[in-house]
């Protein structure tokens, strides 16, 4: 019986791959949970698009400051040594390739690393993009964190995205509740699977061809 990872377990798995000294942006939603699993003894610099580096955890109740928020507009704190800057500088950090890692949620990832995570393309949807496109193309490594399958059981890893793209060929690695998969010039390479899942079954659940090459 395969043991799908919970959202917390996925966050913990991503956190394992974030090394000491990394400059990291965690996207809104599921990726935000990664912060809860970063080991305290590891110094990691969390960047928030609205102008802070060295972001700390949520403040204690009653100590919220409306001038100190994260990209999701929730109250946060600043670590000692952290700093503030304006939006021009914040996006220079992304676009200029200064961030080591960003972690993003996704609707779909294609075999060539195309990412779709901002718009379902529904005609009545009000489009909103925020910093998603800047993050997608900016960091040295882009990690995607998502459920392997949609609620109706379709693979979110696809040969070509059917949703509007956020970025072209930008994803480096995919973490799902079933597997860890690298995007390589030779195609998608599965590196890990959850307990109880065989490669044939993983392949069957995935919309494109995988190679199995554990690290």
């Amino acid at each position, binding site marked *: 019986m395969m043991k799908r990872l919970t959202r917390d377990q996925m966050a913990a798995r991503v956190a394992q791959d974030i090394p000491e000294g990394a400059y990291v942006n965690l996207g809104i939603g599921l990726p935000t949970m990664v912060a809860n699993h970063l080991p305290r003894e590891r110094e990691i610099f969390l960047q928030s698009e609205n102008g802070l580096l060295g972001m700390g955890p949520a403040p204690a109740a009653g100590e919220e400051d409306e001038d100190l928020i994260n990209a999701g*507009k929730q109250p946060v704190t*600043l670590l000692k040594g952290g700093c503030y800057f304006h939006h021009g500088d914040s996006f220079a950090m992304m676009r200029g390739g200064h961030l080591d890692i960003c972690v993003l949620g996704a609707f779909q990832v294609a075999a060539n690393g195309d990412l779709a995570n901002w718009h379902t393309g529904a005609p009545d949807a009000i489009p909103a993009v925020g910093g998603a496109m800047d993050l997608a193309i900016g960091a040295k490594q882009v990690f995607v964190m998502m459920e392997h399958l949609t609620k109706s059981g379709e693979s979110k890893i696809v040969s070509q995205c059917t949703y509007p793209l956020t970025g072209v060929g930008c994803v480096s690695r995919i973490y799902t509740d079933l597997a860890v998969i690298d995007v390589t010039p030779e195609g998608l390479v599965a590196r890990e699977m959850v307990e109880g899942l065989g490669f044939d079954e993983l392949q069957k659940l995935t919309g494109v061809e995988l190679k199995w090459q554990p690290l």
Partner: protein
Amino acid sequence: MIDKVFESLQAAVADVPDGATVMIGGFGNAGMPSELIDALIAQGARDLTIVNNNAGNGDTGLAALLKAKRVRKIICSFPRQTDSWHFDALYRAGEIELELTPQGNLAERIRAAGAGIGGFFTPTGYGTLLAEGKESRVIDGRGYVLEQPIHADYALIKAHRGDRWGNLVYRKTARNFGPIMATAAKCTIAQVSEVVALGELDPEAVVTPGIFVQRVVLQENK
């Protein structure tokens, strides 16, 4: 004696004409110059083009300006939020034009205007819906999209402290778009929580030099 300090919020926005392009600082409500916006609503200017990251939260600040139907067009990155109901209603009724731009492109378009740049190639948005109709180019093997600067007639921003020469410092993440918007408008109006004497702001730590600021006004009318 140069004194950019205005005696009231009303006086600071009195000359904003109908049809003006107005940048409004803030990311959500952090850094939103709500008191200046309230003064602008009372002043009555309409058919405005607004530049902001969002399209209003809740019922105050930019949301109140939208609700009052003073905005013809909004240029922003992230309009749709759980509390953007005034924008949502106008958009669905076809009563407001939306120009959606990725957040970093929005910031850089503002910065470019302030820095005298006539346009720039950015990798953000290349190959996506938001690049449609724009010139794109491959430079050193990477795709880029041509983006245009955004100039404004006015910028309404919120800072923490200012002096009579217009030098400003901000508070925490309320800084966000303030410093770049100040550079991109013909007339930048900064509401501050404190006006200090010349020399009181550490010159090593001034964030917005006064050359970019035309008017300073206390957040609360005396």
